[in-house]
C-alpha cells in the first residue's frame, strides 16, 4: 500500500485515481475524495486564467509531511494527493485528495485535514487574471481558522 504524492502540470484523471483507491484494499470500505477546481469568481472578482507558482525543492517535502501527519493521526488505508502547477483555465482541476479507511469518519477527517494543511503550509501561490488585471491571490483567514481546528488552538 503505497501513497501517491505528485506535483504536475498535466491534468489528472479523477476516475483512474478513484479506481486506484478502490482497488487498494477490501478492508477499507470508506473512500473520500476532494477536488478543487478553478472558479469563475474569487474574492469578489471575475477570474479568467490562473497561474500556479510553487517552490519545487520544498513542495514534495511539504506534501509528504502533511500526508505523514494525516496517516499518524487516523487509521487510513491509501492516500493520493496531487497538486497541479503552471497555467490553468476556468473549470480546470487544481488539486485532488483521496483517502480510504475502514471508517467513514476517519476518511472524511483525514481528507479534510490534508486540505486544511495544504492550504496553509504547502508552498503554492496563485496569480489570477481578473477583470482588473493580474493579481496575486491573498490568503484567506478562514484557511488559518480551518487548520487551527486540528491543533485545538482555535
Amino acid at each position, binding site marked *: 500500500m503505497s501513497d501517491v504524492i505528485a506535483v504536475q502540470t498535466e491534468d489528472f484523471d479523477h476516475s483512474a485515481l478513484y479506481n486506484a483507491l478502490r482497488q487498494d484494499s477490501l478492508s477499507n470500505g470508506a473512500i473520500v475524495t476532494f477536488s478543487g477546481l478553478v472558479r469563475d469568481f474569487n474574492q469578489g472578482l471575475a477570474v479568467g486564467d490562473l497561474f500556479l507558482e510553487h517552490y519545487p525543492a520544498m513542495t514534495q517535502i511539504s506534501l509528504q509531511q502533511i500526508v505523514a501527519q494525516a496517516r499518524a493521526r487516523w487509521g487510513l488505508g491509501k492516500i493520493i494527493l496531487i497538486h497541479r502547477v503552471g497555467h490553468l483555465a476556468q473549470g480546470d482541476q487544481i488539486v485532488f485528495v483521496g483517502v480510504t479507511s475502514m471508517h467513514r469518519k476517519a476518511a472524511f477527517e483525514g481528507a479534510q485535514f490534508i486540505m486544511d494543511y495544504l492550504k496553509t503550509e504547502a508552498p503554492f*501561490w496563485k496569480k489570477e487574471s481578473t477583470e482588473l488585471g493580474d493579481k496575486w491571490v491573498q490568503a484567506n483567514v478562514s484557511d488559518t481558522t480551518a487548520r487551527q481546528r486540528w491543533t485545538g488552538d482555535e
Partner: protein
Amino acid sequence: MIKVLFFGQLKDQVQTGSIEVAQSVEDVANLKKTLVLYHPQWSEYLSADSTLVAVNQTIGNENTLLTDGDEVAFFPPVTGG
C-alpha cells in the same frame, strides 16, 4: 554563502527571484538585516508579519540558525489548493 529565494507576490516586490549572500550570517534575523542593509526598500516586505521563511525547505523563523550553504526562502502566505 547563503542562497536566498523569493516566491509569490514577494518576488515581485523585491524584484528578484534569488540572490546570494556571501558574508556569514548567524540566523534568519541576521540575514534579513544584511539584506536590508544592501536593499533598504526591502525592509517593509521582509519585516511584514505575514512573510514566511523556510530554511533548507522547512518552515523556520527569525531564530533559525544558518550555516554556509543553506538555502533560505522568503514568501507570503501560501494560496494553493
